[in-house]
């Protein structure tokens, strides 16, 4: 048991080390996100009211696209280099390896966005209340984006340039998350309670955390069998 835990710990460290070695690739979602948030005010003009009104939308759309852009690389290197075959044939249950990979991926891709988002929100003039709710929506929403996106990404693994197909498959599924997340922040800005929208986001989060690893495992097995 101990050696199993030690092996799994090694594997988690490897994920982070790999991301660190490929940091140009790992940082590109953060750079994209920051650039969109910084450039938007330059484009629409410096009207504080206008910026405050569209801020939740800007931040959420930028985060959504940043994650969508990076999803193509999830499991891509593993597939091309053949380590995916080793993962499937490993003595550890594949679902455990997949969960380690996804947690590492969330930490590397989404967490930096969540850390930077309050600064962007402040810059766009969101109130402290709205900033708090925005942070909550990102914490609940980004796992959904990554997990749902990962299913589509693993299903299209055998297609070399899967970016367009991935976007087509995933965007309809991203729409509810985007709507509920931005409406939560908008409601707070108008003085209402964001609880309803946040509960729905939380439900989506729980649903994707529990179910999507199963779908990803099945999709990976199809991928390596080709």
């Amino acid at each position, binding site marked *: 048991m101990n*050696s*199993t835990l*030690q*092996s*799994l710990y*090694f*594997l988690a460290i*490897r994920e982070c*080390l*790999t991301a660190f*070695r*490929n940091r140009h690739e790992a940082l590109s979602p953060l750079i994209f996100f920051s650039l969109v948030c910084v450039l938007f005010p330059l484009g629409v003009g410096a009207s504080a009211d206008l910026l405050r009104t569209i801020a939740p939308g800007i931040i959420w759309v930028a985060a959504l696209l940043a994650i969508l852009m990076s999803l193509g690389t999830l499991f891509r*290197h593993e597939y*091309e*280099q*053949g*380590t995916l*075959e*080793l*993962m*499937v*044939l*490993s*003595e*550890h249950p594949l679902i455990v*390896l997949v969960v380690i990979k996804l947690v590492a991926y969330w930490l590397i891709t989404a967490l930096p966005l969540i850390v930077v988002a309050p600064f962007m929100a402040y810059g766009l003039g969101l109130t402290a209340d709205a900033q708090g709710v925005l942070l909550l929506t990102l914490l609940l929403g980004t796992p959904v984006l990554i997990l749902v996106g990962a299913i589509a990404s693993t299903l299209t693994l055998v297609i070399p340039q899967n970016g367009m197909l991935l976007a087509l498959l995933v965007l309809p599924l991203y729409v509810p998350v985007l709507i509920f997340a931005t409406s939560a922040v908008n409601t707070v800005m108008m003085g209402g309670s964001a609880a309803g929208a946040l509960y729905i986001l939380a439900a989506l989060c729980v649903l994707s955390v529990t179910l999507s690893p199963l779908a990803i495992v099945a999709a990976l097995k199809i991928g*390596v*069998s080709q």
Partner: protein
Amino acid sequence: MSLQLKNLHCYRGHRTLFTNLDISVEPGRVLVVAGKNGCGKSTLLKIISGLRQADEGEVFWNGLSLQENATEFEQQMIWLSHRNGLNESLTAKENIQYSTSLANYTDVNISSILERVGLKGYANTPVRQFSAGMKRRLAMSRLVSKPAKLWLLDEPQSALDKAGIRLLDELIIEHVTQGGAVVMSSHHDVSLTNITVDTLTL
């Protein structure tokens, strides 16, 4: 140990790759799967490894079908495909740690493994800087880093130089004389001295 393939059928699209394949592999034997490109050598190896399901028929390991016996089979088998299974961002040493962690076998001496496959002194070199032959040698290190009864090797000689092929032959002979079994695909001639080599032509 025993590996038995019973009545395997495999189709790819409208093409029939093989039908009614019945073979058993005993300890101390080498089975070479030969045939021209695209005849299904790799597919057969994938089916034996459990990565792919046969369209009909089953693979049995120690008398039990692969689905029932997957964990035990994975513990006793090493898979080396034409993709090397190396993480190119990591160093040679980190790659060995990675593959042994995946195999849940952390009790390894990395420097002796690297020496065995002729990569002494490259422990801390990123695999990205390796030549194709060196990557192949590093992939071969999986064969010596964990004891196993069955080796499944898909085109193991590709990208290897003469010394590399000699090393591979040595490793296979050592494995087989210790009672292991090997199933390998190859489109080269396989000459292993003092070893019984069965050939299956697809």
